[in-house]
């Protein structure tokens, strides 16, 4: 029955593409979370009245974040070809997508981290300082836990964007559902392949959102 509806779909190939997309999304989300968090913390801590208040450092981090957040992803992939070749050694396959995915998504997440940190009650930071806390203690025991729900919902949104980015990276040969939908579906005129790939991506997005929402609710004790 299912083969009548989607005559052109090669199911083992579709499954393999799904796993590739999952792999790209998972790894790039983890890397983005780490780099975005570091950048976001830097933006926050170097801003005026904070522990590492420094105009130049704040301006430089801000400029870096804004520039890479503004470049359209598809152009970023092309611009990063030399760097990718240097880091990964090839332009083909899932691993080749990581530099562009992370550099595209981390600044976006850094902005969300900054917003999350700014939402923290200043009184709580003052209280931690009044107890004699070091900056590292404040980062690990105040800034991170107190902004955790916003950090998690931020990374959920970012992970969903990354699913979209992997599909775009697929067009230039990174593999995954994007490549399948573009090469096997669109270019050969097999609409059913594109359709199934789209459904799978949608399911993936829904599951990510659902997991993110569950975690956010669970950790938010406010």
């Amino acid at each position: 029955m299912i083969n009548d509806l989607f005559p052109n779909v090669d199911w083992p190939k579709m499954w393999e593409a799904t796993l590739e997309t999952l792999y790209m999304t998972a790894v790039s989300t983890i890397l983005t979370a780490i780099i975005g968090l570091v950048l976001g913390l830097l933006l926050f801590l170097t801003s005026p009245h904070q522990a590492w208040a420094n105009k130049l450092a704040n301006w430089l981090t801000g400029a870096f974040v804004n520039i890479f957040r503004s470049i359209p992803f598809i152009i970023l992939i092309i611009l990063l070809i030399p760097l990718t070749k240097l880091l990964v050694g090839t332009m083909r396959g899932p691993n080749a997508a990581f530099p562009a995915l992370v550099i595209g998504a981390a600044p976006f997440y850094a902005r969300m981290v900054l917003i999350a940190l700014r939402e923290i009650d200043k009184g709580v930071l003052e209280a931690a300082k009044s107890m004699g806390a070091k900056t590292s203690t404040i980062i690990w025991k105040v800034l991170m836990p107190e902004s955790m729900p916003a950090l998690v919902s931020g990374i959920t949104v970012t992970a969903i964007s990354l699913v979209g980015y992997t599909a775009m990276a697929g067009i230039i040969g990174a593999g995954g559902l994007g490549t399948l939908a573009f090469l096997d579906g669109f270019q050969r005129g097999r609409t059913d392949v594109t359709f199934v790939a789209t459904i799978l991506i949608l399911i993936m997005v829904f599951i990510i959102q659902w997991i993110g929402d569950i975690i956010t609710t669970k950790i938010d004790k406010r």
Partner: protein
Amino acid sequence: MINLKNISKKFNTKQGTIIAVEDVNLDIKKGEIFGIIGYSGAGKSTLIRLLNGLEKPTSGQIIVNSEDITKINEVKLRQVRQKVSMIFQHFNILWSRTVAENIAFPLEIAGVPKDQRLTRVNELIELVGLEGRGHYYPSQLSGGQKQRVGIARALANRPEVLLCDEATSALDPETTDSILDLLVSINAKLGLTIVLITHEMQVIQKICGRVAVMEKGRVVEEGKVLEVFQNPQQPITKRFVSQVNDTNKAQQTILHLKELYPNGKLIKLKFVGEQTEQPILSRLIKQFDLEVNIVQGNISHTQNGAFGTLILQLEGDALLVDEAIRYIHEQKVITEVINND
């Protein structure tokens, strides 16, 4: 214990320089409860933050425990802060931690091992009366309970000084009283010095031994609470004192009272300090065959004694009334006859 010498603090803003604290000198003694009162913008918040180095003075010396905290480095300052702790108007406890974890936080900062932390946290939970609530999150607590967490947290590292930044201003009157009682008992039990800032004279009256009145960054009046209450010098101090003891209102009621009680004699008794502890009224009734009617009364308690006024109507034989008044005079109570003419 705490010594401020010629302390000034200026802030540079886009609108120009703001002088938050100007040439303040204070000497706060070990084990006392010292109050600083002022309206918002008087500089008291800045002043209290100078005492633990959250703000740095523009000029002057701040000596805490014979150490000038304006001259020490960050590492030492962090150590000082473990001994000069602070509680806040909005409690400032971490929502992401339970009551017990919040109280454990300063112990983690001080590097206390885990098993010792647990014991200490349990002691503190008991001290502030939050038994059975250790695993609650702040969102499950009332304002008063949150402040108790704040107090327990502040006491965790056995500080020598507790700074209270408008600690009861966000609480209702009843809760305010219970928190103030807790502060007094801690002060007595642990012998810790308490410095508090407030805009409510009731707070000063209830728990402070000495008070400094601040206006426009300066300390305009300072002294024992009882003395300041009895004899306020500055207009601003008079205004604060009238918050708890409204003399203008009292004058008006006296006129009104004369109309209401045309018979007998109205007398006004002024109590200060120890006399308030004596049962003058019951002795008066036992010794003299008079009708004694309490018309109005007002007694305020401070940490170094009570003071107040009592208006009585005495009815009966005119000679006996005069004798009774003489008797009250002998008890060293200031007496004033409000003539009925």
